[in-house]
């Protein structure tokens, strides 16, 4: 099996929700330093709603995991809520009703997600937003799809690219979102939206590679 099945998508979502809950306080602090401080509570709200929507039973399709996240984030409000929500919505749409997501499906989802976030939020790379993590992640997976890499490899590359993009936001002054109001005060502080996006992809790379845990073995098999 070279793609991501429903069980894998659930593992990914749950790993992310665990990580997000664990880091919510720290991510909230970033918004407190260079925004309006609500990112952490918004994230906790989204996480709780996501768990409720994911439920306990098995998912029919991998897209269902992303749909659950999408609906939960959409229902949170704020800026990051609908943007993440619309982004997840594109991941779900690209996955469609297939039983597995392959690298090209992931690439299509990330490209469409990036497009909708850019359209709605108007941010470009370098504006110190989640786009700074989304764009390099989309590029990395597009390159992986091109080279025929499997989902685990693609996700690992995406996570690395997103994290690098997120880290780079520290050197920037924000040009979008509430952090743009504080000018130089934001310099030195990583954008929490970008960091959360990186966390999502890292959670995916780890959870998908290492189900129970025989990941490294699986990867060499593919």
């Amino acid at each position: 099996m070279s793609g991501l099945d429903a069980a894998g998508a659930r593992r990914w979502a749950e790993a992310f929700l665990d990580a997000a809950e664990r880091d919510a306080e720290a991510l909230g602090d970033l918004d407190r330093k260079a925004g309006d401080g609500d990112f952490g509570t918004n994230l906790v709200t989204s996480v709780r709603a996501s768990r409720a929507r994911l439920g306990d039973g098995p998912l029919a399709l991998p897209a269902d995991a992303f749909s659950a996240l999408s609906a939960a984030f959409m229902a949170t409000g704020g800026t990051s809520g609908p943007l993440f929500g619309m982004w997840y919505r594109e991941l779900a749409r690209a996955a469609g009703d297939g039983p597995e997501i392959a690298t090209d499906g992931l690439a299509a989802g990330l490209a469409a997600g990036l497009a909708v976030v850019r359209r709605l939020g108007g941010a470009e790379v370098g504006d110190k937003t989640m786009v700074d993590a989304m764009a390099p992640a989309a590029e990395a997976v597009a390159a992986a799809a091109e080279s025929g890499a499997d989902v685990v490899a693609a996700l690992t590359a995406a996570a690395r690219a997103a994290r690098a993009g997120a880290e780079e936001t520290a050197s920037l002054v924000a040009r979008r979102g509430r952090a743009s109001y504080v000018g130089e005060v934001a310099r030195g502080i990583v954008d929490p939206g970008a960091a959360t996006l990186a966390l999502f992809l890292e959670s995916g790379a780890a959870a998908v590679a290492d189900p129970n845990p025989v990941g490294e073995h699986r990867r060499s098999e593919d």
Partner: protein
Amino acid sequence: MTRRQFVNDPQDHVREGLAGFELANARLVRWNRDPSYVVRATPARASKVGLLSGGGSGHEPLHTGFVGEGMLDAAVPGAIFSSPTVEQVEAATRAVDAGAGVLHIVKNYTGDKLNFSIAAELVADDGIEVATVVVADDLATDSDDPGLPGRRGTAAVVTVEKVCGAAAERGASLAELKALGERVADGSRSMALALAAPAHPGEGQPSFELLDGEVEFGVGIHGERGIGRTSFASADELAASLTTPVADALDLVAGDEVIAIVNGLGATHPIELNVVFGAAAGVLERRGVEVARALVGPYVTALDMAGCSVTLTRADAEILDLWDAPVRTPGLTW
């Protein structure tokens, strides 16, 4: 000392506050629990354009306190300092549409614009006409750079809601209300400063710390840092530092009339606000500008921030007449 608040679970704070608000103001408003929005206890007559505003919570009395006769038909409260959701805006828009369309009055924040505009697209599919007035009065975030989000929306939204609310009661059309709201918004500028940062409910620490000799100048209403630290000074000097740039930005000259709002950001006492208003009025008087109407009090708060803002709106006979029209809401009545 750690900051403390009256709070149960912080996640429930906004909803518990709305429950108490509805109970205390049952004759004026009703709270729809899910999706969460506040409407008038007695809906307006059928042919009126619906007026809807909303945004993050933590700014009370804004916006829920301005639901009622002569002002809003509904308000949509988000989480603290967070835009409401698409679902809330959509449901509230449907609730207040009486066939004449709905005016969205939106403060200029990415999240608010995002959620209101997605909701407007969704209801448009069902033939509900929505027009939007974006209020962007905060001078501190003024910029020529189109890559930036532009001026934040702050206390001028109260003036827009009051004036458009009165016009809607008198039968203005959606297009007329949009034009009127934009005229009021365009003629409004604000500037704010903080003496102490707010703390989120349940959080012990304020969102930033100031040194004794500093004030945070050019703050918004979300506890974010301002555009700079300036020296703490007398009320007269601080009031002038807010009023003069606002008057300059509006090119106010002798003979001009304005509506002034000296707005408390949360923890600032009414005496202080009155002192600041007196000083601001003095600055304007020396310029020959007449303060035709004034509001002094905590109308657009930022939780328990200590500080205030000065908002001026260019007034003319039409705007003043609408300002003076009756209003009956939990937060503003005359």
